[in-house]
């Protein structure tokens, strides 16, 4: 079984993808950043293109930068503008 990342999807992202969660394989090189993963996800689901511009990143449930490196087992989420409270 190949090494994977879990992508959590919420709100407009969840609706665009049609799933609340995706398993995403790490590339053979093992080199992947949060920002590159988002770009790959948008390439797969073009309707994410607009929403992705305003999205923030959470890596293992904490806010992170696009250059954060991903490793097997990480949980990543792309956070559309929030509306709680």
């Amino acid at each position: 079984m190949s090494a994977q990342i879990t992508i959590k999807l919420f709100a407009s992202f969840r609706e665009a993808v049609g799933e609340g969660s995706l398993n995403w394989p790490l590339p053979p090189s093992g080199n992947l950043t949060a920002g590159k993963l988002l770009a790959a996800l948008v390439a797969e689901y073009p309707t994410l293109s607009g929403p992705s511009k305003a999205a923030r990143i959470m890596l293992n449930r904490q806010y992170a930068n696009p250059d954060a490196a991903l490793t097997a087992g990480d949980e990543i989420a792309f956070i559309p503008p929030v509306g709680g409270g």
Partner: protein
Amino acid sequence: MAKIIRITDQPIDLQELVEAVTNERNGGVVLFSGVVRRWNEGQEVHWLEYEAYKEAAEEAMALIAQEVEQRWDTRDIAMAHRVGHLEIGEVAVGIAVGAAHRTEAFDACEFAIDTLKATAPIWKKESWEGQGGQQGEKWVENKV
């Protein structure tokens, strides 16, 4: 450590939040309750649907409690946010803070709700109807 941190699909018990932060050290307790309004920017709201990244939202709330403790020297904070379908007039979020003096309790409670609205991964879908009868559903972003 906060007294209560909770994302829940059940109605929020405000009395429970207040009681959790009321004790003999605290001269002032302030509660904020966020309620679903019928009118929002000229449109009538039919209902709201809240969605949360539950574990991360609870971590964001725990960070708020940490900062409240550092800035206002109290651990007496209780926070609950509801998810799922909400009708007009229902409580979406409740935050109670107890502190030695009232100014601290007011400031810490307002900080907590402001920061929750800016940082907690929670989303709100609104079912709306315009003055001319047009209808729709949309994700509503908090103003920054």
